[in-house]
């Protein structure tokens, strides 16, 4: 089920809390958090290829905090244009860039300055010239209409209270027939009103 926020939910506070949380992850990925991070977690629990992860800078993969594996859904075709919503330090973005190759493009979008800096630096260190990292968020993608073959995202839409708007943005940027490959959390129980208003649960 998707979690919809109450109409009077403090979305600005949530946005600030998410930015603070993920700036902390970028600065100190080995710190205390209530979610797993890093390449060992990605390989062991989410099925990522450990050799592909090992080929990326540790400064990128150490901040990985995804909850699923969009790459396992379907291989991204060579030459495709892919957008990673909430690219973070760039693990999924750089894996996508390698898949699409030099004839494709991988565009990362993230609202946290420190994460964008890590992703940009990681792409340069990998010699990936087909990567572009842009400031933005899921509800306002800095991407042209119908210009993208594949949208990926991992553990981001659950942080967005305006889910319909975020998904409408995915539809706007995708070409007809384009694919969304989304890693996110799903909840099997109906949440109480108190849970829906608990900002700590939203940021986790």
């Amino acid at each position: 089920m998707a979690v919809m926020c109450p109409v009077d939910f403090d979305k600005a506070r949530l946005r600030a809390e998410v930015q603070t949380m993920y700036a902390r992850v970028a600065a100190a990925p080995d710190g205390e958090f209530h979610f797993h991070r890093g390449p060992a977690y990605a390989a062991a629990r989410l099925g990522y290829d450990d050799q592909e992860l090992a080929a990326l800078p540790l400064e990128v993969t150490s901040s990985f905090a995804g909850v699923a594996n969009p790459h396992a859904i379907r291989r991204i075709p060579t030459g495709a244009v892919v957008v990673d919503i909430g690219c973070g330090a760039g693990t999924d973005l750089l894996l996508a860039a390698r898949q699409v190759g030099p004839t494709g493009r991988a565009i990362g979008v993230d609202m946290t300055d420190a994460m964008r800096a890590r992703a940009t630096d990681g792409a340069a260190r990998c010699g990936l010239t087909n990567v572009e990292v842009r400031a933005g968020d899921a509800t306002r993608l800095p991407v042209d209409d119908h210009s993208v073959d594949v949208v990926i995202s991992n553990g981001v839409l659950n942080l967005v209270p305006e889910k319909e708007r975020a998904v409408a943005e995915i539809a706007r940027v995708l070409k007809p027939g384009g694919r969304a490959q989304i890693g996110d959390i799903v909840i099997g129980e109906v949440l109480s009103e108190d849970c829906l208003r608990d900002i700590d649960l939203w940021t986790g």
Partner: protein
Amino acid sequence: MIDVFTAAGFTDVTITARFECFEGTTKQSTARKYRVVGANLSAVRAAV
């Protein structure tokens, strides 16, 4: 999420895999209580 993607006009909206992403974290008990897991969702933007 399936409902949101379907309402937005996507087709072939499918959960393809689930992951116990909160096992071993401090949120493990909450995740078990509310059956919270990571999931892969695949969807295709309808051709107009």
